[in-house]
């Protein structure tokens, strides 16, 4: 079996007073080992919701229906505690805002170690060694010093890398990255993307890469799912989506992106002419 995650008919409704608001409707997709599914869509289209609903991260006001089978185990309707065991260990996730994702009062080291304590029975020295390994693997300088730091003392790019490190050190079968490059600057964005490419090539981890950036998707995804207002607008291979999108919304996204790129190239070209 190569399929790591199979999602069928996933729907999420939100109860507000007596009304229900449909947030996701009938989402289907599968992710295989070593493969990366890109989820593309505007802000508010339900990308994060897709990931959160599978992992039981939504509160009681949301009703999740449908099925999400992870390695022959149904996630929807699974008890909170057993989902807690899966999260962070089998299915790891990297979030969008690294600057606000760490507890501001706790040292980075203790936040790394508490993740180990939740999922392993490693002793203190092994935990310490693993934490250092994680930081080194993510090319963090002075890992020992960084462990003693508080989140506000580190940059967004560094925190994002630590988050990826924490996700990968547990060797998960599925990695979900929810807009991991949106909140950081361009140089860090590049190196973070490289990090994800490495993970894909080295570990063969199944991956869901959520973004509204077509450029990022083009770098890493094999299959693409386009969401629009909580529904699947388009689905297919990266090449297929880029060149023969069936859905008008997807075409709009791609054309906009192409137009931006064209303007950008034109601007560069003009600059060159001016200096020539």
């Amino acid at each position, binding site marked *: 079996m190569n399929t790591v995650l199979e999602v069928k008919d996933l729907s999420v409704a939100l109860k507000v007073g007596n009304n229900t608001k449909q947030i996701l409707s009938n989402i289907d997709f599968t992710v295989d080992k070593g493969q990366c599914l890109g989820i593309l869509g505007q802000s508010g289209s339900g990308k994060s919701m897709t990931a959160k609903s599978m992992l039981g991260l939504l509160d009681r006001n949301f009703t999740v229906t449908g099925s999400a089978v992870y390695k022959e185990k149904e996630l929807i309707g699974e008890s909170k505690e057993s989902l807690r065991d*899966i999260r962070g260990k089998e299915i790891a996730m990297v979030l969008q805002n690294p600057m606000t994702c760490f*507890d501001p*009062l706790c040292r980075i080291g203790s936040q790394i170690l508490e993740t180990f304590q939740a999922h392993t029975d490693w002793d203190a020295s092994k935990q310490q060694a693993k934490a250092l390994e994680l930081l080194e693997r993510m090319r963090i300088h002075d890992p020992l010093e960084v462990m003693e730091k508080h989140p506000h003392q580190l940059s967004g790019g560094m925190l994002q890398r630590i988050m990826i490190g924490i996700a990968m050190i547990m060797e998960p079968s599925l990695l979900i990255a929810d807009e991991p490059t949106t909140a950081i600057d361009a140089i860090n964005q590049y190196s973070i993307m490289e990090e994800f490419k490495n993970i894909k090539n080295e570990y063969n981890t199944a991956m869901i890469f959520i973004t509204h950036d077509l450029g990022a998707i083009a770098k890493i995804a094999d299959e693409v799912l386009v969401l629009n207002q909580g529904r699947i607008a388009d689905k297919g291979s990266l090449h297929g989506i880029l060149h023969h999108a069936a859905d008008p919304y997807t075409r709009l996204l791609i054309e906009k992106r192409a137009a931006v790129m064209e303007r950008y190239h034109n601007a560069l070209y003009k600059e060159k002419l001016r200096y020539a």
Partner: protein
Amino acid sequence: MRNYIIKRVLGAIPLLICISFLCFVFINLIPSDPAEVALRVSQVPVITEEIIAETRAAMGLDKPYLVRYLDWVINCLHLDFGISYTNPDRTVGGELLRCLPATLVLAGASLVLVIFLSLPIGFFCAVYKDSWFDRITRGFIFMTTAMPAYWVGLLLMWLVSIKFDLLPTSGNGSWKHLILPAFTVSLTYISTYIRLIRNNMLENMKEDYVLYANVRGLPQKSILVKHILKNSLHTCIVAVGMSIPQLIAGTIVVENVFAWPGLGTLCITSIFNRDYPVIQTYVLLIGVLFVVFNLLFDIIQTIADPRLKNEVS
């Protein structure tokens, strides 16, 4: 860090000067003549204009306002707060010291009650939001904020002491005497703190770091206690700092209801007797307590918060 503390302490000095000045001015605005009052309480049979003038001179009341203020401040700095009019053989400092322990015991017991009741109740209200426990607590908070302390005190006294005869109505001596007044003093604070902790925790639960803790699969208990509660209490530090002098000052009414022989009772008695030095010193003491505790807990907050701590050092 050291510089920061020194700077903050120095910064409090102008505030203390303002407080002492206001305290002096207000007490001197009271429309009766201190000299006359002093004579009356010491039961001088015939009060003539001459005797009043004499006493004024003896008490230094004929000197200019500012000079009298400065004299008073300098004396205060030497811990000499003057002599009580009603009991000329007692110093004001001695009177306050005599009554202080009872008030501290009452305020301390109230603080302990506040912490040990509001912390768990607030915590569980947030964790089980909208459960019957949370709803009952919210009703209780609503009721207590609408009832003044002296009224609650009287009500409790009637119910517990008179109806059921469980605890003594007034006086002090044993821990049994302490329960009702301490509970009365703490009641409004308990509601305030339950609400503060509950709302802080609910706010914190929406933060990204809680989502990320859940994403990492940390145990629910550790997320609640180690992260959410810790962050919520952090914002309570300054509030606690302000509540301590408030508790000490706030015992004034309750002490009188329960005849608790503390500063509050002394203060009310002094007001009836027009014993100016005592009133003036009491007001000054409470003002200074507010400044000192505010300063102290501000510094504690700064030291406890890694973000602020880095900023100042």
